[in-house]
């Protein structure tokens, strides 16, 4: 008999976690396993319960039901300070009366660490985050990005089992956000500690995560690698949440070999289970729709976004609003009547209520390529 496997020290396991505020259920039974060293991004719209879930893991809120283990130890009833986690707050929550150095050393001094070691760790974190010249300043005298880095440094020096990030980049401007995103990724590579990161920004989710957990209305929708979720969304919510502009959804009815919608018809794609339907939902990413003079869908251009290399046209069609890509050279103007055609095999199909994906695109292409 093989020996019982010791769970890795910082594996986080959530089992049936529930949380209500008064009569409002916020987290409705979440099961999730975050592996050692993983960078898990919890993503979802505002108010979906992702921050609450993070605070439940940190211990800042009490768990109503379910079980939470960190490194194999049940921590439901442990106060935050005994969970050995570090958290970076959206507001940074720097201690305004302490210098950067004192902010960084605060958690270490509380653990009665020898002064020499505190100094070493602070110096290390400071050089890692380029804070070395700012150690004697008060938070008031720092820029937004510098404060952000201090907040991060305060987490790093602790060398915790688990990092928790609550929308840490949302208060920064775009350029800084891109820069800090890069630093975060670098940090994760360097520290290789488990991180759980909450954001509503899908770009952060896509770029940072080892795995992404999409959350909506207190329910975990789907967990997986970023591209897997993008390519194979499990339901309409995940499909619509990831990707920008959002996926177009069109109601259709299976009629023989075609899927008929209002004012258009598509061929039934390969791999669509025949016993589903006839009412179905078709999903088409704007990137997979090309504006031109031909195609099954017709619509009136309502707005145009030119992004440089290409652009997006927003149409009103009999089947509803549709976004579609066009190339730099294409002439598109508001008011034009255009036609749109999907690239080959681009169709996502869902049950009519969107709760389950029935088909993902390009799989036959991939199969063909493989064979």
């Amino acid at each position: 008999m093989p020996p019982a496997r010791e769970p890795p020290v910082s594996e986080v396991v959530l089992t049936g976690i529930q949380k209500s505020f008064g009569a409002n259920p916020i987290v409705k039974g979440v099961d999730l396993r975050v592996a050692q060293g993983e960078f898990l991004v919890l993503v979802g719209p505002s108010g979906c319960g992702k921050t609450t879930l993070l605070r439940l893991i940190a211990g800042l809120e009490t768990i109503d039901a379910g079980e939470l283990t960190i490194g194999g130890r049940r921590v439901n009833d442990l106060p935050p300070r005994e969970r050995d986690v570090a958290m970076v707050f959206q507001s940074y929550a720097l201690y305004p009366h302490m210098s950067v150095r004192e902010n960084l050393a605060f958690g270490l001094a509380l653990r009665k660490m020898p002064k020499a070691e505190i100094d070493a760790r602070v110096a290390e974190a400071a050089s890692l985050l380029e804070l070395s010249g700012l150690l004697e300043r008060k938070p008031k005298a720092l820029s937004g990005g510098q404060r952000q880095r201090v907040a991060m440094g305060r987490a790093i020096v602790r060398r915790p089992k688990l990092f928790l990030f609550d929308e840490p980049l949302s208060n920064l401007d775009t350029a800084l956000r891109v820069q800090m995103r890069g630093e975060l990724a670098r940090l994760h590579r360097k520290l290789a500690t488990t991180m759980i990161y909450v954001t509503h920004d899908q770009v952060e989710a896509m770029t940072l995560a080892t795995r992404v957990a999409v959350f909506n209305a207190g329910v975990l929708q789907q967990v997986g690698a970023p591209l897997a979720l993008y390519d194979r969304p499990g339901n309409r919510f995940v499909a619509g949440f990831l990707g920008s502009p959002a996926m177009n959804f069109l109601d259709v009815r299976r009629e023989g070999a075609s899927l008929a919608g209002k004012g258009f018809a598509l061929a039934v794609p390969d791999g669509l289970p025949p016993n589903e339907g006839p009412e179905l939902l078709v999903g088409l990413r704007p990137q997979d729709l090309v504006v031109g003079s031909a195609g099954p869908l017709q619509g009136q251009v309502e707005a145009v976004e030119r992004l440089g290399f290409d652009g997006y046209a927003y149409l009103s069609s009999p089947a509803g609003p549709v976004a579609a890509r066009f190339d730099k050279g294409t002439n598109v103007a508001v008011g034009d009547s255009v036609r749109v055609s999907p690239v080959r095999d681009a169709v996502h199909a869902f049950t009519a209520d969107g709760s389950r994906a029935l088909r993902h695109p390009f799989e036959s292409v991939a199969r063909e390529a493989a064979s």
Partner: protein
Amino acid sequence: MKLWHSYRGAEEEALEKSAALFEQQTGEKVDLLAIPNDVLGDKLTAAIPHGVGPDVFIFNHERLRSFQHLGIVTASDGSIDKSAYFANAVDALSVDGKTYGYPLSLKCLALYFNTRLVPRPPADTTELERLLPGLSRPDENRFGLAYETGNFYFHAPFLFGFGGDLFDAGGRATFDTKGMVRSLEYVKRLQDSRFIPMETSGALVKSLFNDERAAMVVSGPWFAGEIAPSVKYGVAQLPRNSETGRPMSPFLGVEAAFVSPRSAQLPQAQALARFLSVGAASRLRAVTGRQVPANAAAYEDSAVQEDSLISSFRQAAANATPMPNTLEMARVWEPMKLALRAVLQGGVAPAEAGALADRRYRALHRERPPDASPVPYLAVGALALVAGGAYLARKPRALLPFRRRYPDVARAAVYTGPAVAGLLVLVAVPFVVGISLSLFHHEAGSYSFVGLANFADILASRGYRISEPLSFYFTLVVTVAWTLVNVVLHVGLGLFLAILLKEPLLKLRGVFRVLLIVPWAVPNYITALMWKGLFHRQFGAINGFLVLLGLEPVSWFTRFSTSFAANVATNTWLGFPFMMVVALGALQSIPQDLYEAAEVDGASKWVQFRRITLPLLRPALLPAVILGSVWTFNMFNIIYLVSGGEPGGSTDILVSEAYRWAFQRNEQYGFAAAYSVLIFFVLLGWSTVTKRVTRATDELMG
């Protein structure tokens, strides 16, 4: 003719009727002007020398000598028929062999007795002592006799009954006399036998008599108006002292009509004053005003005879001792009060009390410092002005033409005018007057320039040792301790309650918050009086509670420590809500996520409080602490109303001590002003220190 007085109600009505009678009989017009009693004296001394005063005024005889000294009263010799009045009333109006004014009415103490409990008043102290044990039930808070034991005015009949004298042949006050010792022993015995209550105030006497818990009361005519209609009472003169055979003679106060020497119609003014004191006017005074006439003929009227209150007081007044109208009398009160209370509280034996009073008398009786020449002071002042001007002129901006520096000066003046005027009137003028006053000595209405002598006396603690409560240094130490203890308690309690109130889980938080602010909203003198009552030796709720717990009741105001503690308790009750409100506001401004971050960082609740809450409260609390310390340093009301400085003035703080020098110790305004200037310098030093601390905190917070 103008007549000034301070009567109200029925007494005023009687005066108006008399004046109308005078007008009818003589055709002279009389203008009456009523002025509140506490300011009338000062108005008279200010107005008459300038020729804008009244022709005739009505005043108590106690200030006669000072009036005579200032030349604002005319002798009535030659016009007055002394035989028309009680002899002692005329005596009261004599200064250096001359008589001033016409006696109108008499005030003295008599014995009120509850006729249900005491069918026949005691004629002498033997009878009194026979009655008292049966009337007193200490366990039920019932007493045979009640009067304001700590007030010398009420003790005087005992002193005189034992043949004591207040003044020696040279007119100087004497305390260390046989009569004094025996009278103190006597009342101490009454109190120890629980025949009379302890720490008795006027309000207590009134409520005891109205509840029929005091069978007899020693008080004046004014007390009749305070007796509940349900209590049936009689008035008799105070009993005779059986040991000496002398009557227990109270002080006699005489209200008199005085004539101003500046009157344009002196003969008519004399006629008016005389008219008011005799005949129909004096009957009106008795019947309508219910005052006790000094005119003997008034008592022939049947209506006056039937008024038992008036006839009783007339008998009492017949045996009364005119209150000396000398300056010396004004110096007796505080030493006597000190001695009386020290004996009654048990701190000093009756035999030693006289010496104690004598020592205090000598300490308070400052000889007038030698006159100083104002020239050096004026020179220093002028030099300071020149130096200030030169300093301003050195600034280059100051050399610019005024119009260019302040192009819109007219509009600025309009905007700032009200504030500047207010500051001038409320701050600058009193400040300059106060500082100037501190260089003068005041005695009997006249000021003499003495330079820094007042300061020298205070700082050298002249007349008393540094360890005595009268010493500036003793009081300074008490004041600092008082401030320190209070501020620590205010901040501690305020912070503690603020933290409790911030707790969102606390039910009825809003209700508690309002309730805890209430002490702040109640006027502080009312709170002080309530606490004074709570700390009463026999009737106070606090001692009641201690007894309930099986502990000994505490005589709060007989020892420094307990008296100080009583003051502190009262002021803490008053002071914590302010700190609580400030702390609550500051607490709510600390972001919650700092605590969460600290929690995750590993900080316990205590560490969070110490490392997050306290440092972040500091910028908000520090100004409140500085303000609070200054308020407490000058918290006159509590000291004056709760402990009153007892025991022996030891719990007085600087500001209450300054008040006593000005208003209770022979009007030593200059000396009191010097105290105030010293207080100002102490607080100036304190604010310099705190300014530095505040600046350091600002830097700390970045």
